[in-house]
């Protein structure tokens, strides 16, 4: 009874070690007419790992998820799970929990009937099914909601029911397709933490699709950034943010200024140090720009430009600065720089400083 709130640690431990399995996607391709939805994609989600696929719409992230779920048949490639290739196995024989963007709750059934559905399919006796469904609803903090109609639930509650329904049959893999995209920001952030906690508790191998970069960084052990049907970078959230492998990833995640090296050499004051010959541009995160060299023990780079605008955004100020050649830079000054920001006037020249170790070369 993994989902029973009163389950002992040993039971939970047993569940963790036994049920986690890896999913290995090997060279999967899918064409829609002339459109290359998946282009030779390989990805391994380790047992018990949480991988988020992040990318703009049309990047192939949902297509890949649907291929793993068994709803889309790829043109080529293999998907390994539990030691065998499941790419030809029908969706209903894969036993993966799936949470859909639209929740896909059955509108003609109440909450309890929705959550017991996968158990009824498996022939679990009705009283046991109800007990397990109630436990799953407790896990998603919807205890006592069993008798509600789907139409009576809020978006967040529907999301939780969908989650309960996907985990109630103790799947070894959980697939989630933009599950939070329909929720408002506050609720979305709350649910991100809850899904993360749930994953820590259940340790189900999870593949998660989102177009929200912050969500991907928050929720996942590793993030696969996708573009044009390919995985362009697969790494830990911090590595993705700090050390993007190319300009697409740098621009897609976070706020970054990217300067071609040739241009930067003329405009940036300070020692760039050793530069790999393959590097073509440098990237600086907006929040790494400083208005002064606070605590500087060497290793600073400085760039100056025309201050075009200051925007107050609550936790920080956004400074828009134009360099001599017209290239725009976005810098963020945190709250505690309010004195410095207050002294600035639009139209004046400003110097922006950045620590050398915060400059990433692409």
């Amino acid at each position: 009874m993994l989902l029973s709130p009163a389950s002992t640690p040993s039971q939970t431990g047993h569940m963790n070690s036994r049920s986690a399995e890896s999913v290995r996607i090997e060279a999967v391709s899918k064409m829609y007419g002339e459109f290359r939805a998946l282009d030779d994609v390989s990805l391994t989600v380790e047992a018990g790992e949480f991988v988020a696929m992040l990318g703009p719409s049309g990047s192939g992230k949902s297509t890949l998820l649907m291929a793993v779920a068994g709803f889309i048949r790829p043109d080529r490639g293999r998907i390994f799970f539990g030691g065998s290739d499941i790419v030809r196995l029908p969706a209903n024989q894969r036993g993966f929990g799936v949470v859909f963007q639209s929740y896909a709750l059955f509108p003609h059934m109440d909450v309890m009937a929705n959550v017991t559905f996968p158990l009824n399919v498996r022939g679990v006796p009705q009283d046991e099914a109800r007990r397990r469904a109630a436990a799953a609803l407790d896990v998603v903090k919807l205890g006592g909601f069993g008798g509600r109609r789907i139409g009576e639930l809020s978006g967040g509650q529907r999301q939780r029911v969908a989650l309960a329904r996907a985990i109630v049959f103790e799947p070894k893999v959980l697939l989630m397709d933009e599950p939070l995209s329909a929720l408002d920001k506050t609720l979305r952030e709350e649910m991100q933490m809850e899904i993360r906690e749930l994953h820590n508790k259940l340790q189900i191998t999870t593949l998660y699709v989102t177009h929200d970069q912050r969500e991907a960084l928050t929720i996942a052990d590793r993030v696969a950034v996708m573009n044009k049907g390919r995985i362009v970078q697969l790494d830990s959230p911090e590595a993705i943010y700090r050390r993007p492998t190319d300009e697409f990833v740098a621009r897609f995640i976070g706020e970054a200024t990217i300067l071609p090296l040739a241009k930067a050499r003329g405009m940036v004051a300070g020692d760039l140090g050793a530069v790999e010959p393959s590097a073509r541009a440098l990237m600086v995160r907006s929040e790494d720009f400083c208005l002064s060299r606070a605590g500087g023990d060497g290793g600073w780079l400085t760039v100056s430009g025309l201050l075009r605008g200051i925007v107050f955004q609550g936790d920080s100020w956004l400074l828009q600065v134009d360099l001599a050649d017209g290239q725009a830079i976005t810098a963020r000054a945190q709250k505690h720089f309010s004195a410095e920001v207050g002294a600035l006037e639009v139209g004046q020249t400003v110097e922006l400083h950045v620590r050398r170790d915060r400059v990433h070369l692409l």
Partner: protein
Amino acid sequence: MTALNPAASLREADNSAHLAWDARLERLVSFAFTLPCLMVVALCVLVPCAWLFFLSAYGADGRMSLENYQRIVDGASYARIFVTTFQVALATVVACVVIGVPFATFINSLPPRRSVLFLAAVLLPFWTSLLVRAYAWLVLLQRTGIVNSVLMGLGVTNAPLELAFNHFATVLGMTHIMLPIFILPVLGAMRNIDRALIRAAASMGATRGYTFRKVFLPLAAPGIAAGAILVFVMSLGFYVTPAILGGGNVTVISMRIARSLSNYSNWGAASALGVLLLVFTALLFALSYGVQRILLSRQRS
């Protein structure tokens, strides 16, 4: 004049009366668009119906009486006609459900372009006249018709089968006509079913059959109910098809009404039959409305 123009007389600080007047004006204007339609309905439906009620309440001697209704209640032949009419209509509904639900499911599963093709095939009969279709069936079904020739040619049967001029032929012809009317609302309901629901069921391990029974069919049920009621109610009033394909062996209410008028010029009797049919139909509509509301309220989302 100020009384008729609130805009001039109302001068509150919060402007609420002006805004309420604007809202009312808007509703009135949009209601005005329904006026031509309402007038047609009043002239062509309500007035004749009232006239029907009026006529049915007068006896052969021109005095007000319930003798027209009394005759229907007393006469065994009338009861038989009502039973026949309802039997034929019900059989048509059953045939439409048996043929139409699987077919609509099939069309719904097709990619858009091909589904249009199949839908066109279903709707094609709409463009041929009732009479032509009834006679076309006769060509197929009569003793020397194509079906019998083929069956006898193949040695399936020695003597021609009685395929025409009976209930079977009548229901067949009516099903042919009603099928598109049944399929359209059913397909509408099916098209509204979120495909993610079917996928969700599969992801939880359900087979296609289980998903069809537990998810697809219950969600299509309001459309099926709407189609069935529509077919049933329309089938109650059929005249041409039972007259031709029934060949005198199937007497439905509309045929009796026609005979009362053309043979006996008995407006009272014909009107009473018409009124009864109208009442039954109205009752069925009310019933179906109730059933539909229950079905829909069970899946509000």
